[in-house]
């Protein structure tokens, strides 16, 4: 007959072993991912990766396209996102509209990115066809729009969270000095939260730089790299799109791994910068 204490000990041992086991599985799986990414990606890395286009064995068209579309998308997302997040944190109070907007923002945040790309394609096609220029449906601007739409909810969330973290004493001090609410927000609150806002922007940038599905129906792809800003009106390549088209051919699979490595490194670096900034800001 087993004592209760023995039962409890056995339960605990099983649990502890399971936790170690879970950690081991997770570490093995994630390490395998890490290793295959770095091993395969580095072996394809060379100077020509940054100087030649995908048809010549490099990734220049993808790199420049990704950078341009993400940057353009972020401009859009930062403007809308910071303003909306400010409204939620500062002006909405406990209003019903505020609750709706927060919920809808969460919905957008979790919405499958492919549906956003689908919607962007539909609207671009509809508008451009009505205007008589359907051939511009697939363009870098469409891609940037889709990416921007994906980034907006992230920026809204982080902005609201960051602004809510600012002590109300700051606001009260500003109002006491006679500043209008808008001035308080812009000159005081935004300024003191700027590290957090920047981190939110970086997080959003990291997230959209790896997105593939929304670009399938918007940017489509291009063998040539963009040379001037106006090239964004044409079809544009992007690193995730290149991965999607290169990974299946033995001749180009190592290039696909290199592209995956570049995206992952960019995401890691941006995340690390964000963390460093957040840590510094907290001091």
């Amino acid at each position, binding site marked *: 007959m087993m004592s209760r204490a023995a039962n*409890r000990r056995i339960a*605990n041992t*099983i*649990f*502890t072993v*399971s*936790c*170690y086991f*879970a*950690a081991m599985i*997770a570490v093995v*799986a*994630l390490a*395998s*991912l*890490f290793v*295959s*990414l770095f091993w395969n990606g580095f072996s394809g890395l060379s100077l020509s990766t940054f100087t030649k286009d995908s048809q010549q064995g490099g990734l220049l068209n993808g790199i420049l396209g990704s950078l341009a579309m993400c940057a353009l998308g972020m401009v859009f997302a930062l403007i*809308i*996102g910071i*303003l*909306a997040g*400010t*409204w939620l944190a500062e*002006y909405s109070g406990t209003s019903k*509209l505020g609750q709706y*907007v927060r*919920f809808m*923002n969460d*919905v*957008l945040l*979790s*919405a*499958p*990115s*492919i*549906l*956003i790309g*689908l*919607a962007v394609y539909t609207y671009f096609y509809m508008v451009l066809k009505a205007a008589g220029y359907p051939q511009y449906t697939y363009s870098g601007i469409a891609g940037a729009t889709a990416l921007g739409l994906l980034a*907006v909810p992230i920026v809204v969330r982080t902005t609201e969270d960051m602004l809510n973290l600012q002590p109300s004493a700051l606001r009260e001090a500003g109002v006491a000095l006679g500043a*209008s609410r*808008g*001035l308080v927000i*812009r000159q005081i609150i935004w300024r003191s939260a700027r590290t957090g806002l920047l981190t939110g922007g970086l997080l959003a940038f990291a*997230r959209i*730089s*790896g997105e*593939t*599905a929304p670009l399938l129906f918007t940017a489509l792809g291009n063998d040539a790299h963009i040379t001037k800003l106006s090239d964004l009106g044409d079809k544009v390549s992007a690193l*995730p799109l290149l991965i*999607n088209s290169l*990974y299946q051919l033995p001749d180009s699979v190592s290039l*696909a*791994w290199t592209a995956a490595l570049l*995206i*992952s490194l960019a*995401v*890691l670096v941006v*995340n690390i910068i964000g963390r460093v900034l957040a840590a510094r800001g907290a001091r």
Partner: protein
Amino acid sequence: MTAVVAETASDMQVQASRIVRGSWGESLFRAACLSAATFLLVLLAGVMGALLVGGWPAFHQFGFGFFVSSTWDTNNDVYGAAGPIFGTLATAAISLFIALPLAIGVAVFLVEFCPKVLAQPISTVIDLLAGIPSIVYGMWGFFVFAPLVANYIQTPLTSALNPDGFWGKFFAGVPNGNLFVASVVLAIMILPYMTSVFRELMLSVPSAVREAAYGLGCTPFEVVRSVMIPFVQRGMIGGTMLGLGRALGETMAVTFVIGNTHNFPKGLFDATSTIASTIANEFAEASGLKLASLIAMGLILFLITFAVLALARMLLNSNKS
């Protein structure tokens, strides 16, 4: 004294005039913020509108049958979304089934059992891995995991087992592109995110509470089960729901390894498709009723994600007693 008062008075006058002047800028700024917030609603309405309008012909043509039929016949223009819907729900459910216990286990390991020296670096690495794009997981699944399962598990077993026996049928199916591989890849993909959320939640439990439990003589298992998890269960539900939402909508990680057929999978190792993978594969060429069917499936996916989120909110709010 009078000079100070006079100075303050003139300062206040200047301030007052600034406030009067500033009221234009003030309402403009507020309007801008409000417009941006309302724009979010417009955005969502726009996405839903595009899906609804685009998908309507399919709902109109096929009615309820669209949800239960798995026919996908381009020749005769008859489409049914049952296969992809089932695939979406099945991959998400199985991946959650795998990832949830793993995430809890890893989080508990990092908080309770791991030597402090290792815990911080491992946690940082896991947090960073949460940001790796899904297409990288897809590549790993396609080049590393799927062949592993195919060559070391599936093919030897199906060759050795009786094809009509239970286990023979269980492992029968398609190597390299099936429900099991896709679900595991999804699970590995949502694992870092859920682990870091759970870990943060567990770290947020006040040490006084933990120490009290240990002080009463609880084993670590009992501390976690009876004290920590109930303390953070709201956050855990939220984190799980977000993970589920991500799993439902994932495209690239799944498309590479799911097999891309429209049928119901006959077993765990059979090929199938998800709504997202079907749209990714066939949108470029679809027109007419097929396009409407794809968009209709997109709407269904959107509604499923919406429902999961609403459910999470409800659960979280109801627990706030």
